[in-house]
């Protein structure tokens, strides 16, 4: 069952062109030139219930704009969105009742209040039953250990604590859908780890559908069954991470240390560097297996050490971004 359906979504806005300098400033007072920018350009996708989907793209690609339209804050120029069968544009309140959203760069927690008071407020805003509220808070606390700072004023929390508070706040009303906009931004390794663990647990325990936008590809690798890559407002890739890797970077690197300097070519692998006793081969996964390659080579020269390198996810994503740029004239 598709919990989110998006078809032919377009968002345009007018950008006023300002001329620079004093002369430009005076000119701007009288004539304003504006141009129409397409932040989101004919996007369609559907997301199944219980999935974690990574929604990634370079800065300014239109990720946040899409998320904002999905949550009913922004009106699309054209196109249709359905979340749980309801259009967020027509019935914002009903959609957000079933939605949790966390913006990594923005906190929904009130600076002047203790963390627990913000939760109390949310309990009333979403009209959560006493029992459900207690159960949810208990479960979230089990994953996240927020008990130790629940009575601290929000302004005194560390970034990691604040982010944990924000995630709990977004999950209190047990929403079916959770949008996370860069939830690990600026966090240290430990906090990042615990946020990822939280996302995984939430997804497994309550079958929450999660859309995650991030620049941290570690998040994607660990969490997402599916990635949608967007650049300049258009979807350029949509599929599982493995598929993407096979498509963009179907080759691996095999590093072999021999006992002495030697050069051993192989018909199915390209020898990309030879440095004294170390040789690096590049081969396609679908042409030959690493085991076979090692075996073949060891017939010619004795091997001391072997290392295997997967294509790096960062490189793959960068390749995809660049392809997107080339396609645009």
């Amino acid at each position: 069952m598709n919990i989110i359906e998006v078809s032919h979504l377009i968002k345009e806005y007018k950008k006023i062109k300002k001329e620079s300098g004093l002369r430009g400033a005076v000119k701007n007072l009288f004539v304003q030139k504006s141009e129409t920018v397409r932040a989101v350009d004919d996007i369609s996708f559907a997301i199944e219930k219980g999935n974690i989907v990574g929604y990634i793209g370079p800065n300014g690609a239109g990720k946040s704009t899409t998320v904002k339209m999905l949550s009913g804050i922004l009106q699309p120029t054209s196109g249709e969105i359905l979340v749980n069968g309801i259009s967020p544009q027509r019935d914002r309140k009903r959609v957000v009742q079933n939605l949790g959203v966390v913006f990594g760069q923005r906190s929904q927690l009130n600076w002047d209040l203790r963390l627990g008071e913000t939760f109390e407020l949310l309990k009333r805003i979403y009209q959560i039953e006493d029992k459900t509220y207690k159960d949810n808070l208990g479960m979230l606390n089990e994953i996240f250990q927020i008990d130790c700072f629940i009575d601290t004023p929000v302004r005194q929390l560390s970034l990691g604590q604040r982010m944990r508070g924000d995630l709990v706040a977004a999950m209190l009303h047990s929403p079916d859908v959770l949008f996370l906009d860069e939830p690990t931004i600026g966090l240290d390794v430990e906090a990042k780890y615990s946020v990822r663990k939280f996302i995984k647990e939430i997804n497994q325990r309550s079958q929450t559908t999660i859309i995650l936008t991030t620049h941290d590809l570690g998040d994607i690798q660990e969490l997402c069954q599916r990635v949608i890559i967007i650049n300049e407002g258009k979807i350029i890739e949509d599929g599982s991470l493995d598929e993407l890797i096979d498509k963009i970077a179907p080759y691996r690197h095999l590093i072999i240390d021999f006992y002495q300097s030697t050069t051993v070519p192989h018909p199915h692998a390209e020898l990309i560097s030879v440095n004294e006793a170390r040789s690096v081969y590049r081969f396609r996964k679908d042409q030959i297996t690493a085991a076979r390659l090692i075996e073949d080579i060891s017939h010619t020269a004795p091997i001391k050490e072997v290392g295997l390198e997967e294509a790096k996810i960062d490189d793959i994503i960068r390749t995809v971004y660049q392809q997107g740029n080339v396609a645009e004239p």
Partner: protein
Amino acid sequence: MKPYIFISKLRIQTALAYRFNVISTILIQCLVMYAMSCFWIAAYNGTETVSGVNQRDMITYTTISVIMGNLLTMGVQDRIARSVRSGSVALDLLKPVSIYGIYLAEDLGDCAAAFFQKAIPLLLVGTVIFGFPAPASFVHFLLFLFSFAIGYLINWILAALLGLCAFKTLRLGPLANAKGFIMKLLSGSIFPLWFFPAGFRRVLELLPFMNIYQLPLGIYIGQYTMDEILLRTGLQLFWCAVLWLLFDILQKKMSAVILIQGG
């Protein structure tokens, strides 16, 4: 209703935490009250009545006006402008409640806090210096309360209307200043409208501003006959409804063109 009441409660709680702010406001407001009263004493200079109002009533008018000024402090216009500018309006829109309901609840919470922190101390100080500013009668006092409540709503809607401009302009700056100035002058908060020339006064009485200060205060000191009170309260309710409709239409229009700043 529950979330809104809880928001008001939290606002009162927060306001009570800032003590320095309260003390400095009271000191300044006492000074304003004192200066204004001295001004009226000097202006009357022993004259019995001016436009049917005697000196005692005028000092009552001023004292209550200063107290009302502290209760009628509206956060909504800056709140909208700030949220739009910083983009945090997005977070408000993500809740299954009306954002303007939240803003109103916040202002009402502030008003309740100001009642205990500012209105009561100012009333005490005023009583000590000039004697208790008594209403014309108990009935007049009840009518004053009703009129004040409607005036509060009108004032709030006007502030919210100005706040909506922020969706287009991002900042209010001079607009907010101009509104503050016009309000002070035309609402009767400093000078009652009966001191203005007849023609000008008639124009002002048709505008919504006088319903915020002048009408409740006039009722309080017994300046109006019962018939006049009924008529003017009707007009006040009419203005409140018209402004509310205007606000509702504009607010819907604005939500269609809303732009979220940053990220």
